[in-house]
């Protein structure tokens, strides 16, 4: 039986969301397969790592008892032994427990996890893992870089500009001038590296724009400002696979545009503007699956989603968000999510993929990519050292 380590939590504003993704959408289905031994690794908000069977219990987090639990448990130690081995000591006698890890299933949204940082550690450890690699994760999680790569591949993105926190802090008026010269209201202002709609503002005038910039740089060191799409239909497309990516179903959030850019709407029951009518409850409120679009627009959205997945060199799984101008019929790339909340299992279920099949396939893709990487030559024979 192979051992899968599911790593979740982390030093990110999306810490809590990652716990739900890990326990409900990854650990439970993996255990149901009966093919894997599942090890839960929780990264606390201060960055300490813990490994314990009890960390699979959601009530530990919902009750707030996690703090007490962590106080009486030792942190995890890792051994980079050409792979990855966990060990920890417990009890008065300091009993040592070790576990060789065959594959890692990262479940960390946002910074230090979804952005490629964790994947870098796993690459260094030479252990296979599920999902996008370092490059794709880092690019996808930077809204500016992602748009630049997509644009360079000849794919449509809405007009945008970006600034560093330093620029906004020291020359706010210059930033405002650049924005208003290059873009037209209404605008969206977003922290470049955060997900889950944290720190996103909508602006219809200079004052709102200024406030939005202040909020965005409060969370991030880079901010993107982009034009809102008129006659908007928002759609999202979960995709999995490596060289031959497979899409799930095109999904249309049923929240209003303004409310969609709100953490509560996405994750706290879709309570603001989320509507049950004609929709299903998913990871981020109510949505329509499949989205009801004219055939031509539907095809454009599928084509763009898959093209973006390839352009960003995604592997394993990702979700591509797109914006459609219903009148002009243009479909724009909006954002890529290398680790969709709850894996977007609700959408895959509708596409005929069960939760168990989803995690099993993702494990298979992780191992497949690792095997391909292992075939690459990482040595190069030289006489360089002999000259010293």
């Amino acid at each position, binding site marked *: 039986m192979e051992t899968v380590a599911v790593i979740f939590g982390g030093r990110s504003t999306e810490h809590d969301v990652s716990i739900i993704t890990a326990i409900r959408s990854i650990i439970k289905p993996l255990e149901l397969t009966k093919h894997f031994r599942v090890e839960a690794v929780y990264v606390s908000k201060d960055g300490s790592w813990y490994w314990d069977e009890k960390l699979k219990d959601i009530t530990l987090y919902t009750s707030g008892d996690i703090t*007490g639990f962590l*106080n009486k448990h030792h942190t995890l130690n890792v051994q980079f032994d050409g792979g990855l081995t966990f060990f920890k000591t417990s009890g008065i006698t300091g009993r040592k427990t070790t576990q060789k890890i065959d594959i890692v299933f990262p479940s960390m949204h946002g910074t230090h996890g979804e952005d490629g940082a964790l994947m870098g550690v796993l690459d260094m450890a030479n252990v296979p893992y599920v999902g996008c690699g370092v490059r794709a994760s880092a690019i996808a999680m930077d809204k500016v870089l992602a748009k630049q790569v997509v644009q360079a591949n000849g794919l449509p993105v809405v007009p945008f500009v970006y600034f560093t926190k330093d620029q906004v802090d020291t020359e706010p008026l210059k930033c405002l001038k650049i924005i208003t010269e290059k873009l037209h209201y209404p605008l969206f202002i977003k922290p470049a590296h955060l997900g889950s709609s944290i720190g996103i*503002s909508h602006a219809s005038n200079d004052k709102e724009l200024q*406030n939005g910039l*202040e*909020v965005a740089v*409060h969370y991030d060191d880079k901010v993107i400002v982009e034009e809102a799409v008129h006659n908007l239909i928002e759609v999202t497309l979960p995709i999995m696979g490596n060289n031959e990516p497979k899409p799930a179903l095109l999904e249309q959030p049923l929240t209003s545009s303004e409310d969609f850019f709100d953490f*509560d709407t996405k994750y706290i029951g879709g309570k603001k503007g989320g509507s049950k009518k004609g929709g299903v409850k998913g990871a981020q409120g109510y949505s329509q699956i499949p989205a009801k679009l004219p055939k031509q627009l539907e095809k454009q959205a599928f084509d763009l989603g898959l093209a973006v997945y390839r352009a960003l060199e995604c592997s394993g799984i990702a979700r591509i968000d797109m914006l459609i101008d219903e009148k002009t019929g243009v479909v724009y790339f909006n954002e890529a999510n290398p680790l969709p909340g709850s894996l977007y299992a609700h959408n895959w279920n509708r596409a005929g993929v069960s939760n168990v099949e989803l995690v099993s396939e993702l494990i298979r893709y992780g191992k497949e990519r690792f095997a391909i990487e292992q075939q690459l030559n990482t040595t190069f024979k030289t006489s360089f050292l002999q000259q010293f």
Partner: protein
Amino acid sequence: MQVVVQDLVTNCDLSGKGKLVLLLHGWGDNLHGLRNLHKTLSSKYQVLSLDLPGFGNTDAPTTVWGLDEYGKFVAALLKKLELKQPYAVIGHSNGGAIAIRMVAQGLLNPERIILIAASGIRSDQSVRRLAFQVIAKTGNIATAWLPERYRGVLRRSLYGAAGSDLYVMPQLQETFKKTVRQDVQVDAEKIHIPTLLIYARDDDIVPLSYGRRYHHLINDSILAIIESGGHFVHQKQPTQVLEHIERFLA
């Protein structure tokens, strides 16, 4: 809508047109707790409600705050949003105490004040408060031998049984302690503008006696007593509360 005020990302909701009405929620609550009032009043007024620091989606203060700091924060928010003085301020529970303190200090200069189950009377040694202090003190001695993690759990249960809000927002414990020590009766005496006091007869958190006391202290006040509805009377009896408010503001 989010704005940065005093370096804290602040979640607020500004909607409607007309004279400005400011809503201040109570301890442990957030702007959603006053949503009914906000929604109804915004058909006639411009209404601003906010998550006070540490509550809802607004960042928590990094130091220990009391009513004064909360008051200055609300004044800074109004300035940030380039809003003039509100026509009316509506405060529930601790939000009422903040409103009283702000008006007395001149940070707010409204034409009308509405206090719903407003707290801020701290010298009344009610049975509950007495029980709370006794439990807190004896609890500390009795549980001294327990490991800290068990003491924490026990403390939460004991304070909860005593009706204290101390553990409602664990990250704001010191701020809570500072806030509940502040008595605003002297401030209430300085208020000379029309004030509507709304209390439920069955409120067991902030009793009707507080309403009567404020009625005595604020010379231009009206006391509206609602038979039932408890501490969240504006949620339990929205029609009655709104009738009183709309009549008073008209």
